[in-house]
C-alpha cells in the first residue's frame, strides 16, 4: 500500500501525516510536490494540514490552481481514495470536490483542542473499520473550520449518509456540527479534525488510526 502526501508550499502537517502512516501505521508513504502532474503509482492521496500558499485570499483558494490538484481530481475521478485533512478539507471544498465551505470559527479565533468526534457512517473507505456512533478523541487546530453550506446541501449530505464525522463539542460552530464529509461517490473525504495527530498513545490519543486502517482495509479489498 502506498500513500502519497501532497506538499504545497506552506503545508505544515505533511510530515505528521507521513510519520503517522509510515511509523505508526506501518505503510509506505511518500511526499508529492505541488508541481507534480502524475500520481500514477499511488493507492491513496492525503492533502495535509497547513497554510498552502500562505492561505492568502482564502484558505485553499490558491492551492486549487496548483498543478497537483488537476492530478488529484483525475485520481479521484478514477475512484482513488483522497483524504483532505484541515487545510486539505478547505482545498477540497475550494476546488469543488466537496460541497460547502469552511469559514472562520464562530469565536473568530484559532482553536487548538482535543475534542470528541462521533463516527456518523461506517459506509466509507475511511470509516469502515469503526463502529457507527463510535466516539473518537481527535485534535482540531484551525482558525477557519466552521463548516457551512446551504440547507439543501446539508439535507442532501444527511440524506445520502455522507456526513462522516460530527463534533460532540462543536467548538468552531459548524452547521449541524459537521466535522467531516464524503463526496457522492464516497471516495473523497474532507475533515477538519486531525486523525494523523492521534495515532500514538504518547500523543494522548490513537483514535485517529481507525481512519487510516479503514483506508488500508478498503484498498486491500480492491486488490
Amino acid at each position, binding site marked *: 500500500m502506498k500513500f502519497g502526501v501532497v506538499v504545497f508550499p506552506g503545508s505544515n*502537517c505533511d510530515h505528521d501525516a507521513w*510519520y503517522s502512516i509510515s511509523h505508526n501505521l506501518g505503510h509506505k508513504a511518500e511526499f508529492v510536490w505541488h508541481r507534480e502532474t502524475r500520481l500514477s503509482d499511488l493507492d491513496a492521496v492525503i492533502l495535509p494540514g497547513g497554510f498552502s500558499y500562505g*492561505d492568502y485570499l482564502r484558505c485553499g483558494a490558491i492551492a486549487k490552481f496548483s498543478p497537483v490538484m488537476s492530478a488529484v481530481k483525475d485520481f479521484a475521478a478514477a475512484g482513488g481514495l483522497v483524504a483532505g485533512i484541515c487545510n486539505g478539507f478547505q482545498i477540497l471544498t475550494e476546488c469543488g470536490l466537496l460541497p460547502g465551505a469552511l469559514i472562520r470559527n464562530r469565536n473568530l479565533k484559532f482553536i487548538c483542542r482535543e475534542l470528541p468526534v462521533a463516527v456518523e457512517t461506517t459506509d466509507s473507505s475511511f470509516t469502515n473499520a469503526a463502529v457507527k456512533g463510535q466516539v473518537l478523541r481527535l485534535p482540531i*487546530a484551525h482558525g477557519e473550520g466552521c463548516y457551512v453550506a446551504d440547507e439543501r446541501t446539508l439535507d442532501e449530505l444527511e440524506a445520502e449518509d455522507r456526513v462522516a464525522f460530527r463534533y460532540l463539542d462543536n467548538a468552531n460552530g459548524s452547521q449541524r456540527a459537521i466535522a467531516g464529509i464524503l463526496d457522492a461517490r464516497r471516495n473523497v473525504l474532507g475533515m477538519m479534525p486531525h486523525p494523523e*495527530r492521534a495515532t500514538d498513545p504518547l500523543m494522548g490519543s490513537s483514535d485517529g488510526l481507525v481512519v487510516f486502517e479503514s483506508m488500508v482495509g478498503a484498498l486491500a479489498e480492491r486488490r
Partner: protein
Amino acid sequence: MSAITPDVVQAHQLTPAEYERILELLGREPTYTELGIFSVMWSEHCSYKSTRRHLKKLPTQGPRILQGPGENAGIIDIGDGWAIAFKIESHNHPSFIEPFQGAATGVGGILRDIFTMGARPIAVMDALRFGPLDDPQAGARNRRILEGVVSGIAHYGNCFGVPTIGGETVFDECYNGNPLVNVFALGVFRHDEVFYARASGVGNPVIYVGAKTGKDGIHGASMASTEFTEESKQKRPNVQVGDPFLEKLLLEACLEAMKTGAIVGIQDMGAAGLTCSTCEMGSRAGTGIEIDLQHVPQRETGMTPYEIMLSESQERMLLVAEKGREDEVVRVFRKWGLDAVTVGVVTGDGLLHVKDHGETVARIPNRALADEAPIYDRPYTAPYRAAPMDGPTFESADPGADLVALLTSGDLCSQRWIWEQYDYMVRTNTTLGPGADAAIVRIKGTETSVAMALDGNERYCYLDPREGAKLIVAECCRNLSTVGATPVAATNNLNYGNPERPEIMAQIVESIEGMSEACRHFGTPITGGNVSLYNETLGEPIRPSPVMGIVGLLGTAGPVPVEFPRAGLAILLLGGLGDCEPRRFGGTQYAKVALKDLWGLPPALDMDLEARVQEFTRRVVGSGLAASAHDLGGGGLAVALAECSFGAAGIGARIQLDSGLRKEYLLFHEGPSRVLVSTADPEAVRRMAAELDVEAPLIGWTSPDWLEIENRGVRVVHLKVEELRALWENALPSRLGELGPGGAGSGAM
C-alpha cells in the same frame, strides 16, 4: 549626502563621545550611511554595551555545551549524535507600538535564529507581561495589547508550523506602558548539521536570500534602545511586518540548501538587517565583505543605501557559499520560489565595504562595528525599590474566599484562552503541552525528550534583585524536575529600565550575579540570551523582570500529570510545609491580590535544600511512584492543591495539616523547594525521602468533588471543585468580555 552635525549624531542616539570614537576608528568623518550603520551596531540592542561587563559573570561552560553565547543560539548535546539549539529573545518595544505585528515578528526573529544554525524549530514558548486588564485607566489598552500579542504569536507560529507549547503570563501595573513579549524557541539537529554565521573563504560569494528589502523597521534596533515618550506612537513604521508563510518557505529552503554542502556560513537578518549580518559574519571569520546594493532585491524603488542597510524587513538571510557552487544553492531557493542573489564577495581586508552601483557608500572595519562598540561600566548604587520592609496587619475573614480571589486573578487563573489559540501539537512531538509545570517534546528517532520552562517574578526581583533571580532559576529547575527532567542549560532574557540610572543599573548587576550563582548551583550554564533595556514609559520603569528559559532532558514516556487522577491516593508534600515570617510574605500573590500590597523580602531560598528536593522529585517521578506531581509556586500550597484538583476526573483532596503557622501563611506562603505528589505507595516515597534528607509529610488524600483543608482540626477551606474550576477557567475570558463555555455557572461561593 547630508552633513554630519551634532544634531544628526544625536538623532542617531550616539553620544558625542561615541561619535569621537567613530572619527578615531575611521580616521575621517563618516558618511551618512556609515553613521547609520554605527548607530544600529552600537545600539544597546545590538552591542550590549551596558551589560557586557556583567554578562561575563554568567557561567557558560558545561559538559553538554557545544556552543555557548556569541552565536545566533546556544547548542547543547542531547546524546546519540543529536543536539538542540535554543534561545530567548524579546520584542517588547515593537509589541507596545503594534501588538500583533510586534509579537508576530518577535516569533519570526527567534525562529530564524534557530534555523540559521541548521536546526529545525520544534517548540516555542512565550513569557508575556501586560498591565492589568481591569486597570481603571489603561485597562482597555491592556486588553487590546493582550489580544493583539496573542493573536500575533498564534498567527506566526501556527502558520510556520511550530508548536507553541507553553509559557507564562503575568499582569502588573508596572507593565501598563511597557508590555514584555519574550519568545523562546528550540530546534533539533544532528551534530554534523550545525552551521555557523561566519563568512569564511576569501573569494566566496555572498548570497542574499528570502524576502525583498523594504523600508520597514528602519532603526528598529535603536528604537528598542530608548525610552518611550508620547512621540513613540509616531514610530509605527519602525515596526516590521511579518509573513510566516515566507518564513516557512525560507526554513525549508535553508535546511535543504544546507544539505547540498555548498554553504559555508549563514546568518539571518534580524535587528539591524543587512548591516548586522554582513559585519558580524565578517568579524567572526576575520574576513571582510564587499557588497553592491544594486543587487539587493528591493520591494520599492528609490531606496537609499542608508535605508537598504538599515531596513529590518523580515524573512531574509545572508549566506556565504563555496565559490563555484552558487548554482546548487540558488536552485534550491528557486524551487521554493524565493529570491537568491549574489550581492557580494568575501574579502581578506577585514572591511565592510558597501557599494551602490559601484560607488563606495561605506567602508568600515568589521571589528569596529561588531567588537569595538563602546562598553560602559555604568555606575550603580543600591537597587531601586520603593517598598517598605514591613507590611500591614491583616487577618483573613474567609481563606476560601481568598483562594477564589487568587485563582481568578490574572496571574493564577487558567490561561487556556491564550494557549488554545496556539497550535501546540503540530509536528506531533508534544507529550506535555501548555498548562503544566514544564512542557515536553519528544525527539523522534531517539528515546530522549526535552523539557522546557520559562519563569520570571518581577515582585521578588523588585524586593531583592539578587535573591529574586536565584528564586527564578530555582523555580524553573523545579518545574523541570517536577515533570521528571534533569535541568541542563539555560537562556535568559534580561528586561529592565534605563541603565543610565544607577539604581536601575544596580538591579541589573545584582540580578545577573544572583542568576549566575544559582545557575552554577543547579548546573545550568547559560548558552545565550537577550537584554532589553530602557523599558520605561514617561519615566516610569518596569520592575526588574529577568526571565529564565531552562531546558532539561528525560527519557521519552507518557507524562505524569499535574492533576490528581483518582480518589484514594496519598498526597505528600515533598520538601515539607516550609516556614514564613511577616517580611517574607510581602512578595506573594496573596499580598498582591488580597492585600494589594508589596513589602519586605522575597521568600527565603536554601539552594542546597532546593537541589535535594529537586533530585528527590525527579526520582519519585522517574520511578513511576507519582500518580501526579505539581510544584508550589505563586499562591503557595492552597493554589497548588486547587490546580491539582482541576483534572477531567474532578478529583479534589481532603487535607489535614498540623502546623503552628498562621492560616494565611500556611495556605498561601510561597516558600520554594516544595512539590506536591499523589501516590499509591506513600511508604516507598517516604523511604526515598529519608535517603535524601528531605521532608515528605503525608498531608492528606485525594477524594471526589471537594477541596477541603483542615489545620489542627479547624476547617479553613471547603470548596466544591467543579465550581472552583469554573471560576478559574472563566476568569480570563470574562475579563476580556467573553464568557467561555459554562461561563454562566460562576456564582459566588
